[in-house]
């Protein structure tokens, strides 16, 4: 199997995730798009690990999974806090820091 098949699949999912982060205004959906991006990175890590016959790719993919789990936990807590303060999770309304 070509290395590029996996890398291009990862690139496509990465780009779709970036579109989701930029175009969505619902906080939970932005977090889902970030999950897409992290999974694209994981595909790349494992593909390069298989290509170089190095187990480190899988180990770092495992670390990424753990960091993603932590990120979703804190992210959803923040989204819940925004909902509690504003009664909505529309991220375009969270603009206090806009000059």
């Amino acid at each position, binding site marked *: 199997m070509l290395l*590029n098949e996996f*890398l291009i699949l990862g690139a496509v999912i990465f780009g779709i995730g970036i579109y989701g982060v*930029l175009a969505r205004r619902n906080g939970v959906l932005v977090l889902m798009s970030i999950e*897409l991006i992290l999974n694209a990175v994981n595909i790349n890590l494992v593909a390069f690990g298989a290509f170089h016959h190095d187990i480190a790719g899988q180990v770092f993919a495992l670390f990424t999974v753990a960091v993603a789990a932590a990120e979703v936990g*804190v992210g959803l807590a923040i989204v819940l806090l925004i909902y509690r303060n504003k009664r909505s999770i529309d991220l375009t309304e969270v603009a206090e820091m806009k000059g």
Partner: protein
Amino acid sequence: MLNGWLRSPPVPVAQLLAAESATLPQQITFGILAAVMTISALRVVTAKNVVHCALHLVLVLAGVAGIYILLAAEFLAAVQVIVYIGAIVVLFLFGIMLTRAPLGRDSTLDNDQRPLAALVGVSVIGLLCALLVDGFGDKEIVLPEVQRTEEVGLAIFQSYVIPFEVVSVLLLAALVGSVVLARRD
């Protein structure tokens, strides 16, 4: 001429065909997985119903687990199913429920920078694909043997034990942080 061709069979072609047919099932599986994952990922970022987005995310994550199996990373595939599909998607569904997002069709999920976002996404995909084709044109992945779970465990607890401990501290910090953030006082 035909006689000579018959007497010396084209060996390279035969070898090529054998090599092709050895990875053909993998190629077909990869094609199916890639198609399902791309379509589901597009549905995640475009669907009008929040719950449908979460369910399409499940499809993408399951596809990633299949890709891991294709790459002989079976432990990672199991972790993907348990942690992502089992835990993170359930967390997302809880988030959708707790924020009382409208469960039917909702046309206010996207903001007004969609064309610009699509431009950025498409150009990122285009640039990355051009770079990858240029850099790794026809490099083949040759899987030597099945990379066993034992090797992953040994690597984590020998070479990468300090990052492993740091990740545990990070998970603890995230746990405490989310409890502090979400607590009502």
